[in-house]
């Protein structure tokens, strides 16, 4: 039950940076076939920094709250800082115990972020 702490439910029900960006520098999508969680992420990059980001998708509270927290954490930060974000950072942000069955939900946001950073490198 600890998993549904106030901060998780707050981010799930009032997601930060939810939406799409038409001027996105890069857009990526990921699914968690186990749960059916779906996320897409748009990033606008300027001068090596995340000028704006937005995500859309649907899924369980953990996957959606995790993405919302990551967006809040990284918006306005440099790509260097984004690179440093690890799975552990995500567990810290979530701040609740994640059972092995829910790890994939929790780190879907991480997979999305990594994918976008790799694609960005290929673009430049």
């Amino acid at each position: 039950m600890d998993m549904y702490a106030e901060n998780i439910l707050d981010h799930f029900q009032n997601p930060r940076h939810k939406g799409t960006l038409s001027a996105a520098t890069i857009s990526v999508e990921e699914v968690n076939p186990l749960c059916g969680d779906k996320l897409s992420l748009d990033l606008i990059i300027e001068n090596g920094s995340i000028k704006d980001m937005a995500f859309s998708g649907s899924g369980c509270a953990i996957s959606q709250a995790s993405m919302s927290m990551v967006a809040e954490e990284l918006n306005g930060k440099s790509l260097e800082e984004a690179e440093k974000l690890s799975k552990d950072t995500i567990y810290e942000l979530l701040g609740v115990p994640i059972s092995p069955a829910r790890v994939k939900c929790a780190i879907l946001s991480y997979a999305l972020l990594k994918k976008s950073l790799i694609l960005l490198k290929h673009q430049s």
Partner: protein
Amino acid sequence: MYQNQNLQQNQPMLNSQQLKKDFPILSRVINGKKLTYLDNASTSQKPQSVISAITDYYTNHNANIHRAVYTIAQEATLAYESTREAVKDFINARSAEEIIFTRNTTESINLVAYAYAATTLKPGDSVMVSALEHHSNLVPWQEVCRKTGATLKVIPLSGDPELRYTLDFEWFQKNIDASVKILAITQASNTTGTIVPVEKFIEVARAHGAKVLIDGAQSVPHMPVDVQQLDCDFLAFSSHKMLGPTGVGALYAKKELLETMPPFLFGGDMIREVHQQEATWNDLPWKFEAGTPNIADVIAFQEAIKYLRAIGMQEIAEHDQELAHYAKQQLEAIPQIIIHAPKNAKQMTGIISFEIPGVHPHDIAEIFNSDNIAIRGGHHCAQPLMETLNIPATARMSFYIYNTQEDIDTAIEAIKKVIKIFSPKK
């Protein structure tokens, strides 16, 4: 051998509270709470007699079957083959030669797809399945159609609001023709719990010359199924959903079809004579059982069949249906809930799928787990059905002989908890 203390022969009514005592796992307490097991469509729990039969085989009779002359090998062979007789009687097949042991329902269906369909279908032919199929009765046919050039046709759900979640029989009657060589259809949906009146479909399919495979994974454990009465060509089901061990499936097939079919897997035990460059095949049913089979679990499967027969399949069908009906009534009393089940309780087996808008089914299942209640949240291996219904996933409760109305009451309390946790905060 272990006797089930709580199962009395020919008891007048199914007493679930009594039966629970035969299933050791149901007294397991986690975090101070007793297990409420409501995921029987996924797999059933096992009575002590089944568990003991596995130990008994390895303790007293362990030997390979069909070959050796020594006593324990003869005992093992006899026990293995007597399960085949028990399966034959359970579904009323004509002879034990028509029963093949596999690993599970999926393998049973693959056996038919590879050894029958892939060797007979031609471009221009079709295979017909339904919108209710589990991936196991869909993906093998997709593959066979790709390999043979045959077309895959899908019987849709009825558009009539009164008949929601049931199959469109009229569409089927209009669209079946001589090109349809195989109808592969479920007898009970693992997602919506819909019971498909397969006898009607079989009659029409036969009139058009199609062979019929019934996916009995969710029906054989829960209702009387008589293959001679149905007159189906193939019936696939699994031991583990009917109190037996995992790793054992069964395929019923009409003898005249099995005789014309080539083997599915090749190697030991399925041969009569082997020369350096060629081989001939064993008699039925062993022609289709290559290699050392799952002897212990097949033997223990017989105890599961005994257990079910002592209760009676009609009693089980009524019990499961009553629980589903009760669960549906309780769910209907909660305004937020959307139920994905046929309107008519007579068309339902002991499975009920539902949604709570704004809460993902995995979160529902997670909160249920905090009270040690086992339910499933997800697409239930029926992604095309989810697409048709335009929902990403559902939460599903499924019942069996040991479930009681109290189990459902416990689940309803958990649902109220979910709604409370996810209610919008001010």
